[in-house]
């Protein structure tokens, strides 16, 4: 009798469906969580809610027509997405990009890296329950968006970095405003650190949580700040310099233990490194008005295949293009950082609490359109 009663009162694991509509899945990720009280015993991520078949669309567009679609792959960091596509096609077609355009590209991409990391900083602190850094981050991002708007008229999907260069030159007032932003932003980063980095509650929520061992990170294809947090200085800007990155002096911040706090501090330090790169690029910006290479009206790259990758804010972003000499690519495969980084979520969060899952998910900075494409 007692035994059956006890059986009726046993603990049960229960399934929680987190997402696709949930405040901290940053879009439309769906996680099936097997929970034992507050503890997570199993995670099954379901992706595909934002699939737009961008790779298939590429097969039906000319190379230039496809550029705006790359904006939509990672809408928080459109410039790097543009750049990844442009460098891949340039490598395929053997196009020489004017140096001024390369410098402008670097400035734009690094500004966009800051903007993207700001969204990450805001949403991650929001996930941890701190609302105020979110609005601070968006306040600074606004200035960057103003700089972009000044340059290309767009605030989100820029379509600015084109094959062979950039769409237009930076306006004359850009440099002054950009330098003022960098100067201001450095003090802002100190503010973020004051409000978060040494905050005991923040430390308690991030130190030692969600440790990603380096071996696992490599196996799962993690890249960007996610793998750099695990003490591995892997940065395409340094490992395989593209554009003009080999001309700049910058450091690659790494973490020590691969926990949430390490991934946080890597991105915070990247803010400062991006500022350094932008300043150097502004100093070394070559004069002239050549901002786009001379190209035929309809680009027909020679038959062949190419893989080219860049360091996007979330990690390694690469395009694999197969051309059969036509004006449209035969096949395009997009390698995005978020997909690999998302895979680390389940092994990192098992056994932690649901509150930690949110922190870990925030720390790997996944953006869903990039996962699904």
């Amino acid at each position, binding site marked *: 009798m007692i035994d059956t009663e006890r059986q009726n009162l046993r603990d049960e694991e229960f399934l*929680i469906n987190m997402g696709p509509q949930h405040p901290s899945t940053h879009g439309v990720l769906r996680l099936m969580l097997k929970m034992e009280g*507050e503890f997570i015993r199993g995670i099954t991520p379901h992706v595909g809610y934002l699939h737009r078949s961008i790779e298939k669309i590429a097969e039906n567009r000319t190379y230039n027509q496809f550029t705006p679609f790359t904006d939509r792959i990672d809408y928080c960091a459109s410039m790097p997405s543009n750049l990844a596509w442009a460098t891949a096609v340039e490598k395929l077609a053997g196009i020489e990009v004017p140096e001024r355009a390369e410098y402008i590209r670097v400035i734009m991409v690094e500004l966009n890296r800051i903007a993207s990391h700001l969204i990450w900083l805001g949403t991650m602190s929001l996930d941890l*329950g701190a609302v105020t850094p979110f609005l601070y981050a968006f306040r600074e991002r606004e200035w960057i968006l103003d700089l972009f708007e000044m340059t290309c008229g767009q605030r989100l999907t820029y379509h600015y970095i084109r094959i062979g260069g950039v769409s237009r030159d930076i306006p004359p007032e850009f440099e002054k405003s950009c330098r003022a932003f960098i100067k201001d932003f450095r003090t802002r980063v100190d503010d973020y650190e004051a409000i978060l980095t040494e905050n005991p509650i923040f430390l308690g929520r991030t130190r030692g949580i969600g440790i990603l061992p380096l071996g696992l990170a490599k196996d799962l294809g993690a890249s960007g700040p996610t793998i750099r947090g695990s003490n591995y200085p892997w940065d395409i800007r340094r490992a395989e310099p593209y554009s003009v990155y080999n001309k700049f002096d910058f450091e690659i911040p790494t973490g020590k233990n691969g926990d949430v706090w390490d991934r946080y501090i890597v991105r915070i330090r990247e803010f400062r490194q991006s500022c350094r790169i932008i300043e150097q690029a502004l100093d070394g910006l070559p004069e002239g008005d050549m901002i786009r290479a001379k190209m035929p009206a309809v680009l027909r790259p020679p038959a062949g295949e190419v893989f080219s990758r860049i360091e996007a804010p979330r990690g390694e972003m690469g395009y694999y293009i197969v051309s059969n000499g036509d004006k449209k690519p035969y096949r395009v495969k997009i390698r995005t950082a978020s997909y690999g980084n998302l895979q680390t979520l389940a092994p990192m969060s098992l056994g932690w609490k649901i509150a930690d899952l949110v922190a870990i998910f925030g720390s790997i900075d996944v953006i869903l359109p990039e996962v699904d494409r």
Partner: protein
Amino acid sequence: MFELDGLLSGLYKIISDWFISHDIPVVWLDLLVMLFAAAAVIAALLLTALFLVWWERKISAHIQDRLGPMRTGPHGVLQTIADAIKLLQKEDIVPDAADKKVYFWAPVVAFVAAFLAYIVMPFGKGLIARDLNIGIVYIVAITSFTVISLLMAGWASNNKYALLGGMRSAAQIVSYEVPLTISLLGSVMLAGSLSMVDIVEAQGPYFWRWYWLPQILGFGIYFVSATAEANRTPFDLPEAEQELVAGFNIEYSGMKFAMFFLAEFINAFTISAVATTLFLGGWQPPLPGLAFVPSWIWFLAKTLFLVFVLMWFRWTYPRLRVDQLMDFAWKFLLPLAFVNLVLTGLGVYFFN
């Protein structure tokens, strides 16, 4: 000048004379007075809650470099009223699988419990609905009603997130109850009474004689535990938006949600008011020379300042995790509260 107790007792005298001259038993008058007191307290608190919602939005906005509500009335002061009217019009959704009775009563319990504490709250000199001789114990008992309502809401909604929220709140509030109660005992020992009025009067009109100074430890422990008790950030785990979407009130809509919402703000006011009474001299002015300002204004000013501190916490700190929360209560606050109790006892023994 503007002291309300003289006005009220004058009114009482006139009416009781009228009752006596017409041969009506005075017990009816007492009943009337009770009703009047209840109505006055409820009306004042509802207004306070409406004001606090607006105030919190303004404070958060200014902390975050925004303006907050600006459109409804000057600086958006009518925003909460507009929101309340909007919530009144909303459909009252009850999930099919919910436990209907419990689901219905949960917000009522939360709402009523939030008001009950004010029976013994000394708003000003002579402004108290009932001066119970066990006042502070009564408040501690009543404020723990919140946990029942949250548990009811979490359970009855038949939603996993709500259930997790309800469980969290039960664990959290029951844990923090202990250091909270013990931290209050220090002031009680100093005043030698459990009555709220006696505690206020024992502190006197000098701000350095208020109990925040001898009870600085108790004040800190009380304020932190009370923040947890009222489910406010950094202890707002039962409704952690980013983890549990909205926690225990996830399924509630319309006026039932508004009842939870207003109860939360009234609770925030309650904990500040209790802190004011026990540690900041209640309605006493900081210096005798400042007694020309009515006592209820001093009470309101001190309480609103503490509410502001609560809001300041909320918009600055991240949220704790559930096990860290428990550790903090049992391993840190509770021993500290006992230390405070022993020190206070020794102090009372040697210096009295």
